[in-house]
């Protein structure tokens, strides 16, 4: 499961860029910081590679493997 | 002209500091009166709250900071919430209608507002010039600095290739202030 803590996100886009299967996109919503945070589109394609988590500078993404 | 103390507040990226510098410059260099501009930083490294002050007066300005502003420009809810209590009785508040929810105004306070961001985006496709619209509005409402001086100060301080756009935004602000 890929969880995004939208209010921690600063909208840098790194997770989106680092996702090998390109399933993350910016949502249209703004968070409390006034930035667009990412959302996951086709979670079933997720490889659980954890890139989105590992590269997020603001610890805003969590990939839970056990729930695969 | 009596001394006017103006506090401009908002968040990083709204051009609040630049606005205050333009106001000060317009007054002191072009309107040939006096101005002091100061700014304080928030605790966060980047972004976050911005608070900047301009005092404008005909007489020499000795005390350089503001304890109770005559005018408060607030461009975010937090900026408004944190600052409206400091305002002098009979002070003026100027906000962006879409960003700030003004409630429970004390008696005597004059309240102006405009949709600076919305207009900037809608009419000029450039959110970044919302602050110019605010300045134009401010000028029209307060007449503390002359429009001419404002235009000259803007010309000194913005990149020349964006000057026209900025002046356009300024004019829009003046118009909605009328």
């Amino acid at each position, binding site marked *: 499961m890929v969880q995004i803590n939208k209010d921690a996100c600063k909208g840098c886009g790194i997770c989106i860029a680092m996702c090998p299967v390109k399933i993350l996109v910016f949502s249209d919503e703004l968070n409390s910081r006034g930035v667009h945070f990412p959302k996951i589109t086709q979670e079933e394609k997720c490889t659980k590679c954890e890139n989105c988590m590992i590269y997020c500078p603001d610890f805003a993404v969590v990939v839970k493997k056990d729930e695969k | 002209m009596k001394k006017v103390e103006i506090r401009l507040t908002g968040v990083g990226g709204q051009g609040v500091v630049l606005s205050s510098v333009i106001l000060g410059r317009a007054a002191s260099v072009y309107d040939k009166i006096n101005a002091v501009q100061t700014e304080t*930083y928030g605790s966060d490294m980047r972004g976050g709250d911005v608070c900047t002050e301009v005092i404008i007066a005909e007489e020499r300005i000795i005390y350089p900071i503001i304890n109770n502003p005559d005018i408060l420009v607030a461009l975010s809810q937090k900026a408004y919430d944190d600052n409206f209590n400091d305002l002098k009785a009979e002070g003026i508040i100027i906000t962006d209608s879409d960003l700030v929810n003004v409630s429970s105004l004390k008696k005597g306070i004059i309240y102006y507002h405009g949709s600076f961001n919305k207009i900037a985006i809608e009419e000029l496709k450039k959110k970044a010039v919302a602050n110019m619209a605010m300045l134009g509005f401010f000028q029209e409402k307060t007449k503390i600095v002359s429009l001419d001086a404002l235009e000259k*100060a803007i010309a000194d301080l913005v990149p020349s290739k964006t000057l026209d756009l900025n002046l356009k935004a300024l004019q829009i602000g003046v118009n909605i202030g009328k």
Partner: protein
Amino acid sequence: MKNKKNIERKTDFIQGNIACAEGAIAAGCNFFAGYPITPASEIAHYMSRKMFEVEGTFIQTEDELAAIANIVGASWGGNKSMTATSGPGISLMLENIGLAVVTETPCVIVNVQRGGPSTGSPSVAFQGDMLQPKFGSHGEYQIIALAPSSPQEMFDFTVEAFNKAEKYRIPVFILADSLIGHMRERVDFPLDDEIILEERKKLKNYQGIHQKIFLDENVAPMPIFGEGLKANITGSTHKEDGFRNVSDPKIMDTAIKRLSNKILKHKEDIIAVEEKYLEDAEVAIFSYGLVYRAVLETVNIARNQGLKVGSFRPITIWPFPQEQVEELSKKVKTIIVCENNLGQIYPFVKAAANGNAKIIFLPPKILGALYKQEEILNKIKEVIS
């Protein structure tokens, strides 16, 4: 400001830090070495462009130890040199500030003070480093220090700092603070012919190995490097000719006293104070730098209320205006000392007053925040009633 010719008066609305840099350039500064630090960095930013425009040099050094060493070296190379930093940088420069003093090297050192000690609060305005230039380097010595209160004074005092540095072959300090450094106000630039510049007295010809190039109470001529003058310069105790003697207390005694007298003998030329409404005052308020503006505002208010209060403001902090304060203490009943610290200059005021007047220290309610007018006014009323 680029390529200014100054045939018609220029006016600008600029930060104190930029005004300081402009003042340096107007004074002929052609060497700037520094290491970035809040709230002084704007001076370096500005100089990194301007120095090359005036055929000068800008270098960002590896640290502040190197910055002071660079400006001293450059001064001996004939440049008018300067550095700008904040408290932590001055702390690191102190050893070689002492070297600048004993080698009688003209240079200007700007401290845009921050809150603290240590890293502290970099953008909070504070007057915490007032004694540091005078007593921070080991040993016994004199320096000159000026405290501006506005961007205009950042310009004017920096010109003055260069003049005094050159005239007396000594490091001169500008003690500003972060609020003055970052505050914007109108600065009126003098026309070229309005700026009076002191040029250093230079040794013209080589005069033998025992030529007198140091320890003259009226300032010895400086042998600039590269002109065949065979300068013999050391930070160790030395004689008039520069020769070292590190064991004889008599030589040291002479060196220290001469260096000290070089400044103290010329106090009258060096010291500037500003007095307001003191003629009939019962109470004087002693303040400097930014605090002075809060004081002056309050004194105006108090005068309007009929209170007999005046303002005494040292422009020169070091050498301390001892005699002027003593005089003052004989005229008024009370001196209220206002400083944005816990009373650094206060003991010097008290010592100078020598019991003649009552000396009260009034700290700001919140260190780092400018006094509110009431804070001072209440004290005045309390004292007068």
